């Protein structure tokens, strides 16, 4: 049993889950137009906190303060010792954390932020950061469920947040992804998305002592890659379809699907295709981006929490901004609030790197959820280690001439050579890409055969700092030309997407930012807790700059 025992949402609309739900029910939207908010950044529509709306914690950034506040309010009424307990883990869901300070300092590591937040509450476990682009929030819930199901922890405090700055807004503008008016999910006249700031916290527990407080149960979760493109949604909705197929067992109990619904032409079109392929064309669908904008690392949590509390009130929320159907495949969009007596909903997300995730949640306090055990035994079928000066495959040194960044190009030319997109990648993606090429070409399996049974799980400490610096240089006051080709790599999970696309791996793709490689082990093992997974391509891919990096990747297979 993975019970949801507490939650809290802080958004520009309201502080508190109930207050946010009431605001949505009153059809209020926090999206406003900002013309001169940031110098150089073109006018945009977004949902932003006014500075005075954020209760700052002394010594913490506004990103960290929002996370702390969301956790603090969630914990009201819980046993005082729960947050600091030895069997409680903090999981942070964010795409860019403190990135707004990059121009001044490089001391912005996500894992350090997470540690400061956990320590604030006296929790001494090393926290986990899920940085899987826009699907981070749902992935964090899935990670928590797996760790709790396996008994590695008893409680998980999951907090999701992103704050907006010129870094993020300029990037989305360079992608021509933003609408210059309030967004219209699934509508025929939709023009793009709006970004939003928010923090949301969800506390999960497998401790039966908390059963009386349970607000619901996380029943099943699934993550799949489209293996199609690092920024363009799949035209067949493959990853989202596979996720929906995994988590939905019974249409009769399903009240609605809360979709990603970013209001870009391609996202909503892709989702409509996936929903149809999964036989969900008549199931009510709603999207919350019209109220809050796209809140990035908070989105999966915020939208899950609101959906949960709406369902407790017997309500399917409306879709602000939707008027007239505008997808080629028919879907049953809930334009306004409607009643339901069903007890389950599905939360669906997709993101850059081709990743997709879905969870099914029941409002029954102690429902029996799907639990797939970790395998008893696994074998390592291949292992590659790359440093700037040395390469080994299965422990055997590989002769190379170049060093540093040039070594990665040499390895690409020697072992691949037929994939010019390599030269567009940042160093982190190049590192993961060549390491996976060496590994997969060395184990003798047939390459490029589409498969859904292999997960890609990667992690590091520095996220994608090297490329963040490169993007930052394109938004400086004296040289403001935001580069979309660099911006896309400011998400660390793109490396997993590149490998999925190259190899046609449609299984899970996940990226964690962690304190050290050892911390990866339970996360890699837990990737086997998704239906159908037979092998995991696991990698520690650390990259400080173009010439300083280390990759240690292996293929782990289930013993039959």
């Amino acid at each position, binding site marked *: 049993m993975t019970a949801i025992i507490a939650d809290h949402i802080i958004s520009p609309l309201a502080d508190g889950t109930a207050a946010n739900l009431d605001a949505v029910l009153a059809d209020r939207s926090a999206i406003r137009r900002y013309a001169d908010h940031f110098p150089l950044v073109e006018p945009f529509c977004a949902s932003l906190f006014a500075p005075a709306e954020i209760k700052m914690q002394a010594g913490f950034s506004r990103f960290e303060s929002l996370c702390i506040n969301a956790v603090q309010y969630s914990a009201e009424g819980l046993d005082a010792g729960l947050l600091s307990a030895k069997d409680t883990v903090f999981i942070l869901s964010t795409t860019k954390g403190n990135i707004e300070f990059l121009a001044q300092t490089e001391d912005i590591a996500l894992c350090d932020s997470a540690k400061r937040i956990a320590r604030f509450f006296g929790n001494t476990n090393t926290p986990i950061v899920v940085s899987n682009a826009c699907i981070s929030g749902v992935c964090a819930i899935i990670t928590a469920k797996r760790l709790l199901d396996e008994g590695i922890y008893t409680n998980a405090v999951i907090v999701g947040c992103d704050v907006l700055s010129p870094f993020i807004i300029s990037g989305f503008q360079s992608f*021509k992804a933003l609408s210059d008016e309030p967004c219209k999910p699934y509508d025929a006249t939709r023009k793009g998305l709006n970004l939003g700031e928010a923090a949301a916290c969800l506390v999960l527990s497998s401790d039966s002592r908390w059963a009386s407080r349970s607000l619901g149960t996380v029943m099943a979760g699934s993550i799949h890659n489209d293996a199609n493109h690092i*920024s363009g949604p799949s035209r067949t909705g493959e990853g989202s379809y596979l996720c929906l197929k995994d988590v939905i067992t019974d249409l009769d109990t399903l009240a609605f699907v809360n979709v990603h619904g970013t209001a870009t032409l391609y996202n909503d079109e892709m989702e409509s295709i996936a929903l149809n392929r999964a036989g969900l064309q008549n199931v009510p669908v709603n999207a919350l981006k019209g109220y809050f904008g796209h809140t990035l690392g908070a989105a999966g949590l915020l939208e899950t929490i609101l959906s949960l509390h709406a369902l407790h009130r017997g309500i399917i929320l409306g879709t602000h901004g939707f008027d007239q159907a505008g997808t080629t495949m028919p879907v049953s969009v809930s334009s306004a609030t409607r009643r339901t007596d069903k007890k389950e909903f599905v939360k669906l997300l997709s993101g850059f790197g081709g990743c997709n995730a879905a969870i099914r949640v029941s409002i029954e306090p102690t429902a029996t959820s799907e639990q797939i055990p970790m395998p008893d035994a696994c074998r390592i079928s291949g292992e590659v280690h790359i440093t700037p000066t040395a390469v080994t495959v299965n422990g055997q040194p590989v002769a190379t001439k170049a060093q540093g960044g040039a070594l990665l190009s040499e390895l690409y030319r020697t072992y691949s050579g037929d994939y010019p997109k390599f030269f567009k990648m940042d160093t982190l993606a190049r590192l993961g890409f060549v390491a996976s090429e060496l590994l997969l070409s060395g184990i003798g399996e047939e390459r490029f055969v589409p498969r859904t049974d292999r997960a890609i799980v990667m992690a590091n400490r520095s996220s994608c700092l090297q490329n963040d610096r490169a993007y930052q240089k394109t938004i400086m006051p004296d040289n403001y030309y935001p580069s979309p080709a660099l911006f896309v790599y400011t998400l660390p999970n793109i490396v997993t997407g590149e490998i999925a696309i190259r190899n046609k791996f449609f299984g899970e793709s996940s990226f964690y930012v962690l304190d050290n490689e050892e911390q990866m082990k339970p996360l890699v093992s837990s990737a086997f807790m998704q239906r159908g997974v037979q092998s995991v391509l696991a990698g520690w891919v650390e990259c400080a700059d173009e010439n300083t990096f280390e990759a240690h990747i292996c293929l782990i297979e289930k013993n039959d």
Partner: protein
Amino acid sequence: MNNELLKQQIIEALNLEDITPADIQDDAPLFGEGLGLDSIDALELFVLLEKQYGIKLQNKEEGKQVFQSVNKMAEYIEQHRTK
């Protein structure tokens, strides 16, 4: 407008390693075949036009017209450049 210069700028902006200006034909489609360019490359060409020539394209549709070939692009730059 010098097509060779434009080709060189395209190669640099899009990191087209192993491609030389001679590999890009003046009237061949930039997208769809040959160079293997994708939607991110198209967006990066928007940046190239703005940075090098002070031309701001409004939307992706406009881009599709301008990026039909190097000839088309050069022609558009001649007519609209502000620097």
